[in-house]
């Protein structure tokens, strides 16, 4: 079993397997990736970089497509509002 990665999703520490995409980690943590214009929670839809529903704040940078990004140890991820 490879060593798990530790990432912070909306201030909660989560352990994920290496190779997990940030979008998958947010789904596992049951956290929305973004809040829509009208204030609704949204999660990844297409899983392939097209819809932008998975965009979140990663290491302080907003609007990152998390389905196209792998988790790294000590990454911080927040719901994009």
């Amino acid at each position: 079993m490879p060593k798990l990665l530790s990432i912070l999703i909306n201030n909660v520490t989560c352990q994920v397997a290496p190779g997990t995409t940030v979008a998958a980690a947010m789904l596992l943590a049951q956290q929305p990736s973004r809040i829509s214009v009208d204030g609704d929670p949204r999660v990844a839809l297409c899983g392939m970089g097209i819809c932008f529903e998975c965009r979140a704040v990663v290491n302080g940078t907003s609007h990152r497509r998390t389905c196209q990004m792998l988790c790294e140890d000590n990454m911080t991820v927040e719901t994009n509002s």
Partner: protein
Amino acid sequence: MRAEVLVIGAGPAGIAAATAAAENGCKVIVLDDNVTAGGQIWRGATVDSANTQDVAKQRAMERLQRSGAQVLNGRSVFSADASGTVQTLQETASGNVVEQFHFEKLVLATGARERFLPFPGWTLPGVFGAGGLQALVKGGYSVAGKKIVVAGTGPLLLAVATHLAEDGAVISSVLEQATLAQLAPFAASLWTHPAKLVQGARFRVKLWKTPYRAGCWVIEAIAGSGQTLASVRVTDGTRTWTEPCDLLACGYHLVPNTEIAAFLGCAFRESFVQVDSAQRTSLPNVFCAGEPAGIAGLEAALVQGEIAGLACAGRSHASLQRRSAAERAFGDRMEKAFALRAELRSLPRPDTIVCRCEDVPFARLQGHQGWTDAKLQTRCGMGPCQGRICGPAIEQLLGWRPVSIRQPLFPVPLQAFCFPDASENNTTELIKEKA
């Protein structure tokens, strides 16, 4: 960077094109936006899963490696011009990187995306694309023990249901909107494609307990306590019933990714890029293979890719033409079998969101003449997906064809356009924008 042959897309078509061109002496670079090569059907699982390694994929990847073609992953192409330049954005955990590539010949192997049709509740967490959920599972999302309804249309539904079942999900039903009468001639014609039958047999083994209901579709996704999915309302046109589920995987077949071809000014044949028997587009140095030239599946992508690669290297591809024609015919039969029923156009209610980026409800689109008018008045299609999700949906709902497709393909930080020509390696590290 400079390439004699630049391939956009590392799916089966791009891999076949790059391999054929590189084996015949060309300097080839392949650009792809995913973390690993393989495209949709060969999307690599980045986390260990129950899915066994695909032998055909392994063979294709090894041959690609031996060919000497260089594959660059994590690069999304956002602009291209026919004079021979392509720009890519690489999104890393630490920031954005923009690169420029120059080509003599270009192969567009950009594949397809799922078609989504809006229905009440489709924006709830728990509702995913069918291929979309499969991709997220390959990226480490666990569906073990989850009850899932797979719905929509197309051969992808069975592939997805099988994959999810292999990963421990309970597939409560597969709902195919096409009628049995529509599907029967297509199913019968599969006898001429043994590889596809073998795949079908694997699906049946995995899903023998799961009902496959033709002529049924989801009319609403319903939230439980909290804003997540609890059940779906399903109809066969006369009867309506509720199916409880944890997740819904719903997609309506595929839409070709043809935006880059449009940027370049390639001629189109309906929704697809027009190609000749060498997979050459209307531009002499631009080729197109796989789904953007016609949705026809894996074998079509492979043979068209090989033809394009050989054509780039100036080699003969005459021996591949019969196979290519047979696969094209298969694609045509598939299109007929999974044609969308008219009832799907009346699924959205007035308050159903159509444009997810800007939260534009259906009611606000009705009454507009077309795209230009609606974009100005409602911002529909102006969000980050640039209409790639709502565009095909609105084409079904209201019959509007996309007007002009503008570069960039998706929002790119402004700094990307201040390209320093003199930069050493043609790379710009962009300043982090603050959240």
